[in-house]
């Protein structure tokens, strides 16, 4: 995620001070305050009240907190809120908002294929997929599963997720049988 490193020397922020952080959240300007150590996930959820982004492990493995920072999928739990200052942040709440209020084709496909149960991992997976499919609009199932391996889902066994994405990219899922 290279865009997070700024070309100029970043300012040294006082640890005990809450700093103003302004972002463009799902197309709308939002601002709040954050201590330098506040995670972007906590800033979104508890400072801005954007609860759609979930927190599953806080060490970057499970992928539940994935958001897009200037379009690139990133773990909100491994990003500091102050790093996001001045950037565009897209979260799951913005998907339908940007689609005239209707769920996107990907979201609809998730529903049809029962690609979610408890839904806790879903927001992160949708945000990763939205970024990924914009760059690789027709992944093979192997490529897709490789990309999805950056997310943990405990409910679905991933089968419905794979089916939903293959359908929405105009492909069919190969059956499991080797026989």
């Amino acid at each position: 995620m290279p865009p997070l490193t700024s070309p100029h020397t970043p300012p040294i922020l006082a640890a005990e001070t809450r700093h103003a952080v302004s972002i463009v959240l799902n197309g709308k300007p939002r601002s709040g305050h954050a201590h330098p150590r506040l995670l972007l996930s906590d800033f979104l959820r508890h400072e801005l009240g954007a609860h759609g982004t979930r927190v599953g492990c806080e060490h970057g493995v499970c992928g539940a907190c994935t958001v897009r920072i200037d379009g690139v999928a990133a773990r909100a739990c491994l990003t500091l809120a102050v790093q996001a200052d001045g950037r565009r942040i897209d979260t799951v709440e913005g998907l339908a908002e940007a689609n005239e209020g209707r769920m996107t084709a990907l979201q609809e496909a998730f529903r049809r294929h029962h690609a979610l149960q408890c839904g806790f991992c879903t927001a992160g997976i949708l945000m990763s997929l939205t970024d990924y499919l914009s760059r690789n609009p027709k992944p093979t199932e192997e490529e897709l599963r490789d990309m999805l391996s950056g997310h943990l889902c405990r409910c679905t066994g991933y089968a419905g997720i794979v089916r939903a994405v293959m359908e929405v990219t105009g492909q069919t899922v190969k059956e499991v049988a080797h026989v």
Partner: protein
Amino acid sequence: MTATQTVEIKGSPAVAAPFVGRSMPRVEDAALLTGVARYADDLPVKPGTLHAAILRSPHAHAELLGIDTAAALAVPGVAAVVTGADAKRYASAFLVGIRAPMEHWCLAIDRVRHVGEPVAVVLADSRYLAEDALDRIEVRYRPLPPVTSIAQALEEGSEPLHPAVGSNLVNSRSFHYGDPEAAFAGAARSVSVEVEYPRNSCTPMECFVVLADYDAAEDAYEVLSNFSGPFAVHPVMARALNVPGSRLRLKTPPHSGGSFGNKQAVFPYVVLMGLCARVAGRPVKWVEDRLEHLMAATSATARRMRIDAAVEPDGRVLALRMEQTEDCGAYLRAPEPASLYRNHGNLTGAYDIPNLAVTNRIVVTNKTPTGLNRGFGGGQLYYGLERLMNRVAAELGLDPLDVIRRNLVAADAMPYRTASGGTLDSGDYRATLEQAVREGALDALKARRNALRAEGRLYGIGYAAVVEPSISNMGYITTVLTAEDRRKAGPKNGAQATASVAVDPTGGVSVTVASAPQGQGHRTVLAQVVADVFGLRFEDIRVNTDLDTGKDAWSIASGNYSSRFAGAVAGAAQVAATRLRGRMAALVAGQLNCRADDVRFAGGRVFSDANPDNSLSFPRVAAAGHWSPGTLPDGQEAALRETAFWTPEPLKAPTDADHINSSACYGFIFDFCGVEIDRTTGALRIDRYVTMHDAGRLLNPLLVEGQILGGFAHAVGTALYEEYAYGDDGRFLSGTFADYLVPTACEVPVPVILHRESPSPVTPLGAKGVGEGNCMSTPVCLANAVADALSGLSVAGVSVDGPPSLPITPAKLAALIHPPEPPRPASAAGTGEIARETPPPAATKGGRGLTGEGSREVPATPEQVWAILLDPKELAALLPGCEALDLVGPNAYRAEVVVGIGPVRGRYTAEVALSDLDPPKALTLTGSGTSALGSGSGTGHVTLERTAEGTRVTYRYSASVGGKVAAVGGRMLDSASRLLIGQFFEKLVARAGGPTASDARPAPPLSLLARLLRLLGLNR
């Protein structure tokens, strides 16, 4: 846009096929997909709410000598620090399910018994501040010998976790059904297996959340938590808070991020946070983090099992003798020992085995207490039972499938009473198996195996047949008590499900149930069921599954566990809706000029069967009860709301002879699979997996498939990847998702799912549970396939006998495939080395943590080396990361040391001492340190030996590290510790005037290599 607007249910016709049985997409999904769903951590909190962080034990087993909270209380933003003393003042110990004097409190009182046990809670204005203050709490411990395995717990001399109990074997019961002795005496032969099932858990993506408040005026607690039930634990929580159940109002959030049983184990924290709110006088919020969850939330039980079977030459099993020893962790936490007894009525699985002897033992160990986990006891039981059936075939030279066939319960024996008292309610197991063989193309799989084996590849086929129990009998746990103790306690039985159905003045229908769903789609299925009863559209039914024990109908069996939804809860909703419909029919019959029995509800209309054209709209009938109670016929009350409590008829208390029907109904599963093992790496690939289910009537096939796929994925994790790993000193080693390996999309194949529907005669809708079955059948099916793949393999002349223990990792398989590596040559590094060490000692399994030894030659006299070691300034320079060293007594120091291991860098205050001084020949260096990140201790014995060139310094050390640093840095811990110890002695050598290892290799490439080797712990 509202979230629900996107859910369009097309084609709900006026009088149409019922919704039940159709693959309806879920009403839950829109909120979840658009991010508007509210989980517990998303709900608003009251102003002034304090945030909790929990200080946890770094020790597996230690006496708690004292806690100093003064420095933590001085941290700005900290409102209170709660300790065991507060628990003693305001709370009580939890009730325990067996008769034994063991106490479990929500906070440790005088002893800690597992790594991660709560010791204190900081309450502060934010979670960040609360965590800061944890570092300021000083706790003094006296470590005790840890008990870290079932075998150790059974040893006479193992340190008792609960001294008042006196033994770590806390319960033992023997059961005897039929005449197993005669069967064994008369049988052709006996076959036995011994297996051990590891600890693991389903780890929902959402961790525990508790919001607690205490109302001092009412002496009442109000708590919101993502607790999943069973609500039999509610009285346990209320008792622990010293209030009647009516003063513990427990609510659940609208959405919950998975449970798989695990969220039952939030209950001690409901009590803990209730206590905290009371102590602080303010509302409290706690959100568990992932390290806490993995380390200390809950675990499936580990089980050691030995089964002997009396068998006939054709593979027919006449009797079983079972010995099960269950590791329940540090405390027997409610509802344990349920894991061991949940399957008591179906111990003989899907087989007709009339004679059974069982010995059940329960031990405590210094590990996380166990609890509900998908498959609950079934994975453990069937791992033994289905390995046994496989061994029967292997030892008798039979086809394993034929052994299964010969022993399955026959269809005409249904309902079949098992030896231990279960009633297998329905199904044709043999026909189901044959259907799976046919539709799953077993013949083609066998041909594939033969072809691949002909190429020299390791390929195996495995089978498993199990019954999947659902809707637990609330009385089964009392089977752990003797009949006499049960008589004293009063009978326990049944499994009451509750549902309420109400009509509002506009004709809207609301359904509330006490099912606490965690993602299964209960709202969708209930809308299907109730829409069918009233002849309404799917979208006319509004289902609310939030539970509020202060307002809703509930009972002890309420909750989301034991696969009870489809059979019990959906059934109860149907019962309630049908009763309400009957009352509406009675009210409207006169108006329609017909008998109540002839009133029909369809297409949103209410009419007489004989005259459908004369119909009333459903809303009009519904409104009548609200608007015109005065016109109701005499003696009739309005049909506004109906609450049903339904309990399965066959669930009785255990008999005096210990027969127990532990579940209301039993599905049947037959699985087979093909796996290939890479001969070089040991990597296992699931080539094909076929899973056949008879779960009774399927209410929503799409959701049933989702349950099977999810259970299968959990089972793949259990079989191949996941284990809660502990060091032999009890330190926990799987504290991150980089250590506890949850399978990803690359590891979980899509199984072939087959169905057969034998409706249960027990449940209102004919449905049985379905979500847990693969956690019972799949691990052992894969293990049997591995056994088949390895059959015929011999290493160094010894044939491989069975699969390795779970999880079946590539490392374990490779160790079976390849002969042991030859020992390392004595001087592989060639000439010119100045430092010689024995091969890097691995973290030994037998000792406490790390041990190692080595020796170095230094060009100084023993007296000079001795002087260095005894000079505090010199010692400070030698200790890696030492920032200060103060003399606190003769040859005793207090050191400030900063050490980083993996991602965790921490400051330790260490006590360092020199002892056993034998100048200038030998001394012992001991150190122990603690920090917020955990604890470490070590002992090094150093001997100095005069040689021609100077002195040979020989050292032998043992070290152990525990707490957070071990849990999250476990992968790096052993090599990092060796590196630190190596640094100490390298500095000593350098200080004594000798060249360092790298100095001796001036050429840069060699130096780089040496550094690399050192990093890998191969510092030769």
